[in-house]
């Protein structure tokens, strides 16, 4: 996973030799077993989120005091009805994990969509208009970078009142600066390229240059960054839920399950363990896919 070096723009404007480019990208991606494993896990998580009400063996909210603290099925007192056991009020853990995938994925993807929209727009403006606009935008980036992102999100979610929408907006507005920096850098690099000069000479308007020539050239970096950002947003959402400023509803989330399970860790280890594994596997899968995507889309990497 790159922290500083992200995929550079492809040197040619979009359109040229696209088919061969694409099949090579795919071949490079498919050659990596870790990326394939990541894609498979991701596929399963998305499936679980979409079809949660149909594949979850139990109602996620159904309590049963006789069945509380049932251990996982392979333990001595385990029951086949509850494969991953039950929690302190007898709710089925597997079902809650399957339903929790919905919140995690939704928040992760929506927050990144917000970040991407804000970040890319500001990056394009900053790189193209330069001058005073650039100075102002980069100062805002510096200010954003000064806060521990999680802390800022915590404070604002608490102040605005916890809800899924608040979490999405706040996480989106704390994670955009990476897009701005990368897109701005690419615009600055692209400005000097010959094909941009040619477009300008042919009388293309600024808007057309941005939309037709610059934006397509930043796509590969944006896709890679977004994949990795979704992973980060999922971790952040889980941390917010864990710290008690979650979605504000009773619908299960992985972070909240871990938070509740922590108090019972000495009597029922499975309570916090399995939701954490769900987060770990999901985020790991996204990271593996994103990393491989970067290598595949980056013409410099062999």
């Amino acid at each position, binding site marked *: 996973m790159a922290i500083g070096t992200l995929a550079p723009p492809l040197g040619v404007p979009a359109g040229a030799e696209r088919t061969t480019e694409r099949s090579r990208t795919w071949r490079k991606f498919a050659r990596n077993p870790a990326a394939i494993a990541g894609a498979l896990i991701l596929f399963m998580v998305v499936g679980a989120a979409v079809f949660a009400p149909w594949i979850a063996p139990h109602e996620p909210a159904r309590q049963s005091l006789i069945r509380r603290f049932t251990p996982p099925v392979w333990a001595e007192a385990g029951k086949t009805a509850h494969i991953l056991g039950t929690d302190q009020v007898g709710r089925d853990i597997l079902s809650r994990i399957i339903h929790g995938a919905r919140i995690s994925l939704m928040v992760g993807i929506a927050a990144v969509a917000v970040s991407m929209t804000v970040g890319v727009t500001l990056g394009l403006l900053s790189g193209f208009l330069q001058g005073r606009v650039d100075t102002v935008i980069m100062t805002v980036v510096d200010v954003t970078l000064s806060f521990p992102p999680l802390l800022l999100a915590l404070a*604002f979610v608490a102040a605005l009142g916890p809800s899924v929408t608040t979490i999405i907006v706040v996480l989106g507005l704390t994670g955009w600066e990476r897009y701005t920096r990368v897109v701005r850098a690419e615009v600055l690099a692209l400005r000097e390229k010959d094909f941009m000069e040619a477009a300008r000479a042919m009388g293309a308007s600024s808007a057309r240059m941005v939309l037709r020539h610059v934006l397509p050239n930043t796509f590969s970096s944006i896709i890679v960054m977004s994949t990795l950002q979704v992973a980060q947003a999922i971790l952040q959402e889980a941390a917010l839920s864990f710290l008690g400023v979650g979605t504000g509803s009773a619908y299960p989330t992985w972070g909240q399950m871990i938070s509740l399970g922590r108090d019972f860790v000495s009597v029922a280890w499975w309570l916090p363990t399995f939701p954490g594994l769900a987060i770990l596997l999901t985020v790991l899968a996204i990271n593996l896919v994103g990393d491989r995507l970067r290598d595949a889309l980056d013409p410099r990497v062999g």
Partner: protein
Amino acid sequence: MLTLLIRRVVRLVVVLVGVSLVTFAILQVSGDPVALMMPEAPEADRAVLRQNMGFNDPLAVQFVRFVGNIARGDFGQSFFHRKPALPLVLERMPTTMLLTALAMGLSLGLALPVGILSAVRRNSLFDHAATFVVFLGTSMPVFWTGIMLILLFAVQLRVLPVSGWESWAALILPAFTLATFSTPLLLRIVRSSMLEVINLDYVRTARAKGVSEWFVICRHALINAALPLVTVAGLQFGLLLGGAIVTETVFAVPGLGRLVVGAIRQLDFPIVQAGVFVLALIVVLVNFAVDMLYVYLNPQIRVR
């Protein structure tokens, strides 16, 4: 050199004003602070307090007053403790700093040798294993790692305390948990900055003249890899503090993070604002120091 310094200081001040603006906004978006301060008081009393505290003034006026107060170290009274917020925050600082420093030390001790070896033996089994551990580490929620370590060392093996901060043994698990968060970040930077320099001509020249491999790596490669390393490490400092906040909550470490998280749950905004501002100030100053170090270490910038 002097103009560069002045420009950096000006930027530092501008960023700090921006940081104050965001901190100011926290209380503004929360709705009615007076309702939080005196939840049981009748509306007439609240209106008086609102007027006295200047909440009816234009936002710009309130902001200027806020910045003036911050400059004097006044973040207002904690709603809950009924004491000035800043001293409460500052007295928790040493604990958080100790935790962060311990984790940083552990991380550096692991990340430097492993990262260097990974870069030197690129694509070896060792490198692949290290890369996978980095992936695993960056994908684990730090609070869950902490709980799993509690489960293993405190519940199962019973060798370390579950929480607290009273004995040295109690420091081990929190420090180690935070290190599992920071080590992958550092390891990745060490490896990639070493890879950047290790195949450059001058390193090859050094090898060619017969200097020992160890000396080449330490004297030639590492020194030059140190620049990007320090910069990125500075940028990641905010992330590390975020990890410290979560870690403190898991292990009930009486640090700044736990204070702020508690204050957030109680909607005790003066504490939240003071905590957020102090942590952001630390990040800004660390990055300013890194910037200056960069100027000092990089002869190309120094001459200009």
